[in-house]
């Protein structure tokens, strides 16, 4: 087995008396498409926020490509090649779709400190390429805030891809979508990740979405990993059916 691209050991986070994460382990091999599932309150979002440096972990380690990145702030992690999206769609609403991607490209090119050149013509070709890749080429000049929910999710993906990440973390990439749209959306992510050779970790509620694309599944419950394995393995585990699959059925 090759060196994992992401290895998380015993990650723990408390909020006052509440144990949000009770020592989570996770190992993602390069090229994996890893789903993290679990009921509401299982700690999935806290897990995302803690491993990406938005929250400070109380214990545990986060190792990306063999390097300990525990507690590094998000901007530093982004520069190392980790991109993420948010459960609540998170774009730059007053900027056009094209400008949204430009901002990310400029940051990736370490140009966010550049005060003299005019930004408007910079990196537009690459920005359009990325918008085309996610199927948003036609909306390039619209303000991001006026795009439909699904298109904002596509835009978020384009923003995330602008940094040429090797690991993509998606927090509920299909939240707020209709069932059919959800499958289309995750397939888009899946296709793009395959094309670009990215590894991916995503949280998801919709089992149809999970089983459509995941190579591995981690089941979380009350801040801990309850089960882990291939989709077939996870599906057959009884305790998983009890806490999660059963609940959904």
């Amino acid at each position: 087995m090759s060196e994992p691209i992401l290895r998380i050991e015993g990650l723990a986070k408390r909020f006052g008396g509440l144990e949000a994460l009770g020592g989570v382990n996770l190992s993602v091999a390069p090229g994996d498409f890893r789903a993290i599932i679990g009921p509401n309150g299982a700690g999935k979002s806290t897990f995302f926020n803690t491993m990406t440096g938005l929250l400070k972990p109380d214990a545990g380690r986060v190792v990306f490509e063999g390097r300990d990145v525990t507690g590094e702030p998000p901007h530093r992690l982004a520069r190392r090649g980790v991109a993420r999206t948010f459960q609540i769609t998170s774009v730059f609403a007053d900027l056009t779709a094209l400008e949204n991607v430009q901002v990310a490209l400029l940051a990736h090119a370490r140009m966010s400190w550049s005060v003299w050149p005019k930004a408007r013509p910079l990196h537009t070709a690459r920005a359009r390429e990325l918008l085309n890749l996610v199927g948003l080429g036609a909306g390039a000049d619209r303000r991001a805030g006026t795009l439909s929910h699904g298109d904002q999710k596509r835009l978020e993906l384009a923003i995330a891809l602008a940094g040429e990440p090797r690991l993509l973390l998606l927090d509920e990439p299909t939240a707020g979508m209709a069932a059919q749209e959800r499958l289309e959306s995750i397939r888009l992510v899946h296709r793009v990740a395959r094309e670009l050779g990215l590894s991916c970790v995503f949280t998801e509620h919709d089992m149809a979405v999970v089983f459509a694309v995941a190579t591995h599944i981690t089941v979380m419950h009350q801040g801990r990993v309850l089960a882990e394995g291939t989709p077939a393995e996870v599906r057959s585990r009884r305790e998983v059916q009890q806490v999660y699959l059963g609940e959904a059925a």
Partner: protein
Amino acid sequence: MTRIVIPAVILLALPLALSQFWTFIAIEVLAFALYAVSFNVLLGYGGMLSFGHAAFFGVGGYAAAILLKKAGLPAGLAFALVPFAALLVSALVALVIGIFSVQRSGIYFAMLTFAFQMLLYTIALKATSVTGGDDGLTGLKPPGALAQPIYYYYYALAFVAAALYFLHRLVSSPFGFTLRALRANARRVQYVGVNVRAHQLAAFVASGAFAGLAGALFALSTGNVFPGWLDWTASATPIVMAVLGGVHTFLGPAIGAAVYVVLEVFISGHTEYWPLAMGMIIVALVLLMPEGLSGLRRKPA
């Protein structure tokens, strides 16, 4: 091209058509236009409401006054150094205030800037040997012909134009783009690899430095600085000017500054209740024209 040439011609010809009094007012407009625009680089582009911006305008004014009155340099040299000293000192003060203030956002950021400004106000009031205390520093005068308003107008115009050009480049640059993204969504911008607080701090320093230059230019026009320049009520002025002119355009706050200053002259000539009139104008404007005066040019959606 006409967008630059016509205003340039008007601004260059203006003092030829104005009385000495109105030339003096025009200088005030120039200084406050720079003040309001530099303030709005923070508010309109960076989404940061500073409630202590008078600190920088005041520090710039005091830097100019202290350099002229207390440094013991030849008058010509001291005067030549004033704009650069004002920029530098205000930038340093903004750096110190900014390091603390950008740790928080929203109302807490505003309160931190407010607190630092009150601290500087107290220093201006109490450090009498340097600042002149309650009496301020008076009798500041540019050397030679520049003491006449008409020439000083051109001197101030040159600095304000250069400063506005720089600030315009700044907001149009990749840094400016990043600032707008940061206003829209600070959390998201972290995850594309931007150090949010460092960018906020840089914007704060640039804004403070040019507010300081504006203060110095104004101090040499009126000939005095007073602790009142650093009082908290003075921090409302750039906010009102920016909102009046419109925070979503680069020059909107400059228009706001011009309207504010001229209205103040007219109304205070008729009544001592001019803040009352100004208050009513602002209420009407915010309710009827939330985009400010510069919003008038845009067609309704």
